């Protein structure tokens, strides 16, 4: 089975791709429009350069070769929400080509990435009419095309989820970024492929693909032949429906867009440094500091800032302290710190003092808790002593947990479950997990278990 995706991502520019209309949510249909995005005769496009910047960032993130020279093309097709009946897109010389993106250890080849304008939206009203809203017309999109390197619908979903996380981080896509990502899914179980157009959301991509696997497999088992065709996904019924056969595929008749000229983007591309994507950061941290991949991934997906703190502490106070304190109490208090708009700097200083032998284990844990949550020292001390007391008592009664833990960390779950139930909801699960593991590990050390 082969699956390839064409992923459309709305780029977070403030104004549209070829005019100055805003890209924010409009108060009513057809209010964020002008002669250019309505395709009025006599209007013409002016490129928003930010679109090229975002395109370059994504091309770099995907390991593509960024073109030295790029330009735009006209793709002609008739649809009511395409105001000019011509979409300005890229055909020859797209921004990036020939990339590789890793899903874990598996390379997924990226054919190309290009930028283009979004059409408006068509809304059916009853059987006989439709309404068109051009607010979306001209919003910039990046289209990422993969080779058919994905092997299952679940893998496609995983790939898309990871990709979205990376894209969101690299170009600061807003939190609802997943909504603004649409996907064309190409899938072949046998030889011929079908394309399911315009699927929105991770879950639907997996559903649509799974439906296609079943459909195509059934046909092949019955000795039938798969027709090459374009299909669409009906979200409500969870089925794909044929839209047109291959022989009726449009010939878009691409020509160069003469109004925009040629863009020499080499210098721009050289000057753009992209933020490390979360996936790459996790892989690098794991390799660089010799910690296991799972922990590295947990740090990064909790927050890139947390992972950065981990690195800072590892460099300053050693990897061991970074694992013990950043993956522990700093991580536990991270959300609380973000909620009150704090920074991890104070915690980093506390760990420095611990590493220098200025404070004890217990003091360090308590001070970090204060630094992260903003609680007073007394409250923190009380709460933490309280928590530690419950944990210690439980471990005293169930000493086998400590010895089991050496073989399997899951042994801690029993203690964690107990403490959660018996601490009256005063402590977050992250805090409980941290305290249990820390105390188990400190007993292991004193018992000489390793």
């Amino acid at each position, binding site marked *: 089975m082969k699956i390839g995706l064409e992923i459309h991502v709305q780029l977070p520019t403030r104004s549209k791709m070829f005019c100055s209309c805003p890209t924010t949510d409009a108060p009513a249909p057809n209010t964020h429009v002008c*002669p250019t995005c*309505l*395709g*009025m*005769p*006599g*209007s*013409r496009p*002016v*490129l928003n350069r930010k679109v090229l910047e975002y395109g370059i960032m994504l091309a770099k993130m995907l390991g593509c070769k960024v073109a030295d020279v790029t330009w735009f093309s*006209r793709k*002609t097709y*008739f*649809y*009511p929400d395409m*105001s*000019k*009946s*011509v979409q300005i897109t890229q055909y020859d010389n797209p921004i990036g080509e020939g990339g590789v993106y890793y899903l874990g250890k598996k390379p997924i080849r990226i054919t190309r990435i290009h930028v283009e304008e979004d059409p408006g939206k068509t809304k059916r009203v009853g059987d006989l009419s439709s309404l068109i809203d051009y607010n979306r017309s001209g919003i910039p999109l990046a289209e990422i095309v993969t080779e058919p390197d994905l092997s299952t619908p679940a893998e496609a979903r995983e790939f898309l989820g990871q990709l979205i996380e990376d894209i969101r981080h690299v170009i600061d896509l807003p939190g609802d970024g997943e909504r603004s990502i649409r996907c064309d899914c190409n899938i072949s179980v046998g030889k011929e492929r079908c394309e399911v157009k315009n699927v929105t959301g991770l879950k639907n991509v997996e559903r649509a693909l799974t439906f296609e696997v079943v459909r195509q497999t059934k046909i092949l088992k019955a000795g039938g032949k798969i027709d090459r065709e374009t299909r669409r996904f009906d979200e409500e019924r969870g089925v794909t429906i044929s839209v047109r056969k291959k022989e009726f595929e449009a*010939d878009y*008749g*691409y*020509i*160069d867009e*003469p*109004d*925009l*000229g040629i863009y020499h983007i080499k210098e721009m591309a050289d000057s753009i440094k992209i933020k490390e994507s979360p996936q790459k950061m996790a892989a690098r941290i794991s390799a660089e500091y010799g910690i296991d991949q799972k922990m590295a991934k947990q740090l990064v997906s909790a927050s890139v800032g947390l992972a950065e703190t981990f690195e800072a502490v590892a460099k300053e106070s050693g990897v061991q302290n970074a694992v013990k304190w950043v993956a522990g109490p700093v991580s536990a208090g991270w959300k609380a710190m973000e909620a009150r708009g704090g920074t991890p700097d104070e915690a980093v200083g506390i760990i420095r003092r611990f590493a220098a032998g200025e404070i004890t284990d217990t003091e360090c844990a308590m001070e970090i808790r204060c630094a992260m949550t903003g609680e007073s020292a007394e409250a923190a001390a009380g709460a933490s002593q309280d928590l530690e007391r419950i944990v210690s008592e439980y471990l005293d009664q169930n000493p086998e947990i400590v010895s089991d833990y050496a073989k399997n960390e899951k042994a801690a779950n029993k203690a964690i479950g107990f403490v959660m139930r018996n601490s009256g909801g005063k402590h977050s699960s992250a805090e409980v997990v941290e305290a249990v593991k820390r105390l188990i590990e400190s007993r292991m050390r004193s018992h000489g278990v390793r």
Partner: protein
Amino acid sequence: MTMRDVLSGLKETNARYSMFHSMTDDVDPGDAKFLFSAKDNLTSKDMETCAGSKILIGYRPAFDAAAISKMRDAGGKLIGKCNMDEFGFGTFSYNSGLEIPRNPYDLERACGGSSGGSACAAAVFEGHVSLGVSTGGSICCPASFCGVYGIAPTYGRVSRYGLIDYGNSLDKIGIISADAGDLRRYIRVIAGKDPRDPTSCVQPELRDEGRKMRSVAVPKEGIEGLSKEVEAAFKESLESLKGMGLDVEYVEMPSLKYAMPAYYVLATSEASTNLARYVGMRYGQQEGDHSLKFDDYFSSFRSEYFGDEAKRRILLGTYTRMAGFRDRYYAKALKVRQVVIRDYKRVLADHDAVLAPTMPFTAPRFDDISKMSALDSYKADYLTVPANIAGTPHMSAPCGYDSNGMPIGMQFVADHWNEEVLFDIAERWQRSFEARRPEVKA
């Protein structure tokens, strides 16, 4: 003729010549410094803009074209929007869904095209200046047929903001006037960078250093296939130019004959995409069968409201950019354009301009035009097309009259951004050439 006279007689004059599709009702020029008209493919807030097409009837643009607003800012009053071939598709302003302008020297003859109405207005109204647009010769051809001066500046010299596109990589807005001095005067007004048209933003300043035209090259390919009277008038003009002190040398420009097929491929490829937007929604004509599905609706709508020539060019242009044909036609034509540009650069390294007659014949009669095939009229553009595909500035000046009294024109082509030598020769030529004004009646 005062501005007031022109305005008060406007409707009657137009009834005779049909130069305007729409025009002002004002009879008082107010504080206008001059009157001007504009080809009807330039958008104007105060007048309907149809580009010669039925499909745009009712289109009232929300914005003025850059060239029109600059003329207004300079004190000009827009008095009319000039008739033209539909979207610029023609050589005689005869391929129109609207009115067809008549030649001021003989009402049974064409004004040339596609800026026919503009050249007509320039010939008829004294002291009048008109904005024309050239894609493949649409300024010089009508200027030649109507016995006036016309200049298409370098591609990118004048902002195309507000121009209803024919071939975006070829379209140039220029000036047509009976007074050679207007070319310099008004190109200065409308030229300049405009962020709303990125292709206008690479231009160097318009030069005004007193550069003179001293030598011209006459390509052998440019004096083939001429009518006897055009050939005779052109030869006589060459002698006059020599008398004015210009060097005249015959050269060979073998690429010129490839310019024509390449032009029709590029122009129709672009045009067919530009015309895709006319589907009977949003603006202009919208009277269609609304009970049809969208595909059927826009197909029947386009069948009804586009003229034959527009349909022909849509089909040609769609064919030349289809998968499988794109490389053979569209991509090849892009290469030919570079070959033509190189040929001009080679010749213009040693000469100030390339000179040839503007059109191979004088303004034809309407009854003869109706017998011409599409290919016959395409071929008539072979002298104007090369400079247009190269994007080099070119200017037509009246240089004689045939036995019917119809004007003959010659066309100078200068190097990119070098309009100044064209202004110079136009002004000097005007002082030595005795132009005959048409006998104007209202």
